[in-house]
């Protein structure tokens, strides 16, 4: 166990959290999970009502890291080539030259991702899962630090295309911000009297440190019992009444990696059941597809995972 690397990683986490926390008030838990996803090598889907700070959070994170940041506003007429890139014929040299799209970046903000057509949404599949894109027959690797933050609005349905299940599965976590308490909201107003705090954000870390953070997180130990616990939680979604499609093994993997990152943040070299339980809803819920009956009966993905957490005995 490389204690020094872990200490350094924790310090990076602390800086990032402080920086983002200066912009996004009252969302410590969400920021913690967002950073856990980043450290675990996963991608995040932010779903919440308009104006709750989804884009701000994404931009705050992007500016906190001295890395290439691209924002793509997803619209119905967006094409896959608008994201991946396109080969253009150079008449002078008589060759096709590939012009990289916005996906060739470190942090990609896919704003309102559900407004693009499924074809365009699917263009992100390979990039998110494998860290590469295949364009016109050739594979092009993405940067070592490649992190997608997508946002979507849960209340609008006209002119939107719900993300397909396969795409949802590619997101390690789905996070929500939610409305704040009145006092915290007042604090936001106060903080923005003289200008948006986002404008004052400067990078507190770089790509190299972020890669180090990921490596340190991957080194955190997970006991066999806890691995089994994670598998039990995910497996229970496949047997729960009302769930048409349960979570995949990718969910178990994401849960383990994010738990490792969380344990690292907490200064531990090993994962505890509390880390697993803390992340279970963010990691598992968005992957479930419910029966229509269950939906009409008012059950939600989140409620089902909460039920499972109450059912499956936690290691003690």
């Amino acid at each position, binding site marked *: 166990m490389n204690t020094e690397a872990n200490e350094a990683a924790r310090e990076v986490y602390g800086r990032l959290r402080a920086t983002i926390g200066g912009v996004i008030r009252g969302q410590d838990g969400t920021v913690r999970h967002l950073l856990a996803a980043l450290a675990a090598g996963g991608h995040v889907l932010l779903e919440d009502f308009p104006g709750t700070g989804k884009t701000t959070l994404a931009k705050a994170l992007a500016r906190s890291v001295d890395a290439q940041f691209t924002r793509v506003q997803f619209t119905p007429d967006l094409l896959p080539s608008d994201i991946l890139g396109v080969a253009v014929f150079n008449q002078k040299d008589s060759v096709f030259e590939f012009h990289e799209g916005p996906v060739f970046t470190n942090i990609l903000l896919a704003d309102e991702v559900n407004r693009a057509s499924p074809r365009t949404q699917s263009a992100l599949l390979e990039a998110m899962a494998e860290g590469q894109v295949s364009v016109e027959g050739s594979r092009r690797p993405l940067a070592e630090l490649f992190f997608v933050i997508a946002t979507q609005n849960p209340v609008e349905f006209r002119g939107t295309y719900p993300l397909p299940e396969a795409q949802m599965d590619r997101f390690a976590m789905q996070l929500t911000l939610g409305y704040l308490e009145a006092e915290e909201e007042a604090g936001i107003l106060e903080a923005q009297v003289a200008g948006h705090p986002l404008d004052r954000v400067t990078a507190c870390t770089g790509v190299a440190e972020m890669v180090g953070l990921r490596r340190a997180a991957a080194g955190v130990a*997970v006991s066999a019992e806890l691995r089994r616990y994670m598998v039990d939680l995910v497996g229970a979604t496949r047997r729960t009444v009302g769930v048409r499609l349960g979570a995949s093994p990718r969910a178990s993997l994401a849960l383990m990696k994010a738990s490792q990152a969380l344990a690292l943040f907490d200064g531990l070299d090993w994962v505890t059941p509390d880390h697993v339980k803390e992340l279970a809803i963010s990691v598992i819920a968005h992957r479930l597809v419910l029966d229509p009956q269950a939906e009409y009966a008012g059950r939600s993905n989140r409620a089902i995972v909460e039920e499972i957490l109450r059912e499956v005995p936690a290691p003690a």
Partner: protein
Amino acid sequence: MTPVNPVDRHATSPPLALSAALLLWGWQAGMLPWAAAMAGLIELARWLPLRFEPGQEDFNRLWNFTTLLFLGVGLYLFLAREGPGSVGAVVGTGPPGDRLQGMREISQTAVVFLRWLPFVLFPFVLAHAWSRQGMLPWSTFSLYLRQQEAQVAVSPAGVWRPARVHPRHLYLAVALFSASAAMEHAAFFLPAFVAVTAWALWPWRNRRFGAPVWVGLLVSLLVVSGAARIGMTALREVWQQWENRLLQQSGEREFDQVRSSTAMGAVGRLKLSGQILMRVRSKRERPPARLREAAFNRFQANTWATAHREFQAMLPAIESGPFRVAADLRGVGFTEISRYTTQGEAPLALPGNVVSIGPLPGVLVETNGMAAARVRSAPRLLTWSVDYGPGGGFGLPPEPDDLSLDGLTDTDRAAIENLAVELKLAGESPERAVETVSRHFMLHFDYALWQPPRRGSTTPSALARFLQETRAGHCEYFATATVLLLRVAGIPTRYAVGYGVQEQRGDEWVVRGRHAHAWCLAFMRGQWEDVDTTPASWNEVEEEQAGFTEGLRDWFSEVWYRFTQWRQEGGTWQLYAFCVSMVVLSWLGWRQLRGSRWRRAGHQPLAASPPPLQPGADSEFYAVVAGLEVRFGPRPTHETLDAWVTRLGVAPELRPEKLREMLRLHYRLRFNPAGLPPSERERLRMLAANWTAANP
């Protein structure tokens, strides 16, 4: 790890509830001393610290054994209480009376089995009472659920949270159920039953309502139950009356050999069943055309009767030899007849000129001398052989009743005498008179099972109406008219009933209910001879009555006949079957129990205890957890220790900072694959010991 299941603490039934249920059962089942001993053994476990530590697998095995015991007891009762015979009577083609009796036997066997049920389940419950086990998963009681559990266990993502049940609760329900299985209850059984049930359920009541509400509800329940019981008693009486009526109206009435009510005078279609009553085998020649069951000589109000009501036992000339009917004669024909008896009794259907009845060891054969013989103490399926030939038959000579027309109404007498005058029977020789009567009926009368309604009829008498108006009827009309006409001619006659043998199936002849027949016996040439004036078309008319299900019924009849035959030839097959079954069940039971390892709890040396399955399972922090559970209630299994301790927000006197430190060390011991360094383990041990000492 602490074995306490949070649900278990609330899962025990109230004290003595099970014993009360057992005593109630013992009282009702007449086994009070046994019930008291059983209750004592179970209650003793509350007072003695001795306990065993069976595992789930041991309970599974014990339940398997209990299931075998259940089967064994069931099999014993089934065989000991003539179960096969009762089932056969219900599913077979016997008379309805037998079926009802069979159903009654089966239900009584079931009741006895229910009353014994607490005995059968007692070993399991006793073993559980003396173990440390609380609730058991339902899979303990079901092989199917065990398989399901095993499948889930091997699947990569198996989460199996089986529902659990306390065997004591199940046993209590069984004891109460068995107590209520007795047919007759004392007046205060119902209050006692409700009281024990209420006592057992009291801890589970909804606390939203106060005790007076519940008590009121129970009293209401008692009142309603009492009313329902009275209603059930009344319903049972109605049922019994209905059952008796059904028996009286059932197809094959109990045959009366001294009195025979005819269907003469009844209107509508005479419908007789196609049920096979007898099977007749004859090696060489055709069997006799008619088998007689009885003969009568007094006619009054459409009923034939005989003055010879006394039956006397027939004794064979030599022990276990044939019963001779006509001495010093040798039969020329030989036939074998089989039929079912009802509770060991049946009339013997015999050819008119029977010479001797084959040996029937152990069976009492009786006759009244009027061509009627019957058996008593016979097996369920009786087969008898008959020698018959010229000169045979029961030899009771003619008597005044055989010539009497006394019982006739004036209308009938006038009709008979007018017809006799018309046929000029007076002074004719017996042979000539018989021929005249036969020809008259053959030429001018038809066989019919249908009697039209009496609208427009000038005579109230069925016989006169038959002779003068309808000129059509079934065999009873022809036989009665012939008997009476020949009497007018001065010939002694009797009325015989029995069956026609007219349907051959394979190498045997079958006699069905609809083959029932009546004919005349005339005393001619010094002996009784059959005179059958019923038109020969009666065979075809009767055969038309065969329903489309008759083939299926015949098949069942055949199967049941062969099975009964096999059973009777097998001797004490029940004993053999029981012994073999017991050996098999005992072997299976031994196989189930031999792998069990019941150990006394708390007496095993430490070295012998198995190593912990999970790292840190022997953590000293569990003792602290147990202490906290005593104070704050059990920890929900889904809650992590950290979340639980945080939720408890323990008071300062419990030293929360030490708890946190112990929890951190425990977590590291449990979840860090690298484990806990010895020094920190020692610290955990010390902290836990101090904490438990300070917080006993």
